[in-house]
């Protein structure tokens, strides 16, 4: 990519428009669109992203759109956009809140497989609030999400965020509905829900999913042969088929399905396993009950 600026730790980056100075601590991310650094300014720590002018402008718009969500924003807060001028060249960048925590695939490492289901529930909560704004996430790769301490998921890269009805701006083939020949690339809630379902499967079986990319039947057999994913098989299959129109509908089904499997698993598996799994079934059952109460109201 042209016009890419490489900063080194300790370097001071001075904004041309604001005059603010940011000290680079370390690189925290790098993708096709730009490089992200952890920096420290007079106001504290922040994440600074260098990208081309058009991406900076469009990500600024996406981040400010997210801030319309009441309460905690599902994405990082936007701080400011600026330019670095060096040797006659201009390098646009912007600053956002630094969200600390593990990415989805790092979070699940070494944990029980059932955690993938919990992550899906949190992801659907995230998508619910994003869809309410009339946007889809688009690029549902695990690197784009961080698990924050309050048991929730926040997005750290919103480059793929697209308004309903348009064509998805940025995507990763593995989580892309069109690449699986399961629908269009039009921005609608079902596009994200498909991606969320594939993400859940690939959190546990990334290599296998990658190998069968494009063949939805093979993807389904991966689900069927995984003890953890079997529990929520109908929900995943519905999402693959585009049957859910909203994240809340999928979440409701997921909680019900998760609660139902309780008895079957308790009799079928060894004691030690069920002790841990049982905890989650009780939790999910409780959640489902609360949800049902809420719905009946």
């Amino acid at each position, binding site marked *: 990519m042209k016009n890419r600026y490489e900063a080194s730790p300790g370097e001071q980056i001075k904004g041309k428009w604001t005059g603010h100075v940011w000290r680079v601590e370390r690189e925290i991310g790098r993708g096709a669109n730009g490089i992200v650094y952890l920096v420290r300014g007079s106001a504290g720590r922040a994440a600074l992203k260098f990208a081309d002018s058009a991406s900076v402008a469009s990500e600024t*718009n996406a981040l400010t759109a997210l801030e319309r969500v009441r309460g905690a924003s599902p994405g990082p807060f936007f701080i400011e956009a600026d330019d670095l001028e060096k040797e006659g060249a201009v390098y*646009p960048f*912007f600053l956002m809140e630094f969200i600390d925590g593990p990415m989805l695939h790092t979070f699940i490492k070494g944990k029980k497989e059932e955690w993938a289901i919990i992550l899906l529930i949190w992801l659907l909560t995230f998508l619910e609030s994003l869809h309410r704004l009339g946007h889809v996430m688009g690029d549902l790769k695990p690197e784009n999400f961080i698990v924050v301490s309050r048991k929730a998921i926040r997005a750290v890269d919103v480059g793929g965020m697209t308004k309903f*009805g348009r064509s998805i701006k940025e995507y990763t083939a593995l989580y892309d509905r069109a690449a699986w020949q399961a629908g269009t690339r*039009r921005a609608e809630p079902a596009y994200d829900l498909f991606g969320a379902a594939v993400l859940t499967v690939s959190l546990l079986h990334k290599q296998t999913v990658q190998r069968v990319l494009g063949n939805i039947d093979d993807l389904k057999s991966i689900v069927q042969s995984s003890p953890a994913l079997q529990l929520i098989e109908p929900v995943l299959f519905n999402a693959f088929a585009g049957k859910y129109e909203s994240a809340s509908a999928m979440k409701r089904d997921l909680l019900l399905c998760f609660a139902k499997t309780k008895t079957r698993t308790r009799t079928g598996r060894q004691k030690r396993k069920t002790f841990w799994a049982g905890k989650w079934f009780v939790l999910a059952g409780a959640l489902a009950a609360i949800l049902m109460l809420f719905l009946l109201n």
Partner: protein
Amino acid sequence: MKMGTMKQLLLLTDGCSNTGEDPAMMAAFARRRGITVNVIGIVDGNGTDPGLAEIEAIAKAGGGESRIVQAAALSETVVNVTRQAMTGTIYSIINEELRGILNKEANVESLPPATRSEIAEKVEDISEEAALELLVLTDMSASMKLKLPAVKEALYDLSMSMQSRIGPSSFSLWTFPGKYSAAEERIGWTNDAGKLAESFPQLLSGGITPTGPAIRQALSSFMEMSEYDEKSI
């Protein structure tokens, strides 16, 4: 801002042209007629092919984007290049307007970031809603043999993204060398992007690589189309 039709020619090739006019010159000619020329160079190995300089020169002269990729990465590149070329076209029109209002050096980057964000929003609206004419010109010379499945897949992928746009789009597929001429029309202008991949030919043409003449011939297709438009009005 009102936007006319965005006209793009996407050239997929793996190497050096060896006969006829200089392809960069033909790309410059296209640009003067309001057609952006984008080039994707498909390479085998480490990107030290001798054709690289030509690929960049064509895109530069044609006012478009150029990428050098391995066959495996072709799909996402084709979609990204097409999208970026669309916004690139709109930005270059804005830059021209700015130079008229401000000064000869002005461009969008010389505006404060907040203004740029507002412009970006408008540019996104326009590139999503404006009419698009996209002609894909594919090199089918012998050396492309192993790359054809990747090209077909990339065209399928491109059609998926283009069909999801709001604005009207037309597509056409040309290949070169042709049987009796430099290039040959495989699919005439159609609104059905799906046809690009469906009817992608599996047979190689072999022989020479007349990239320059192929661009010239494919351009005639745009010209005929605009003449047709005028008549129909």
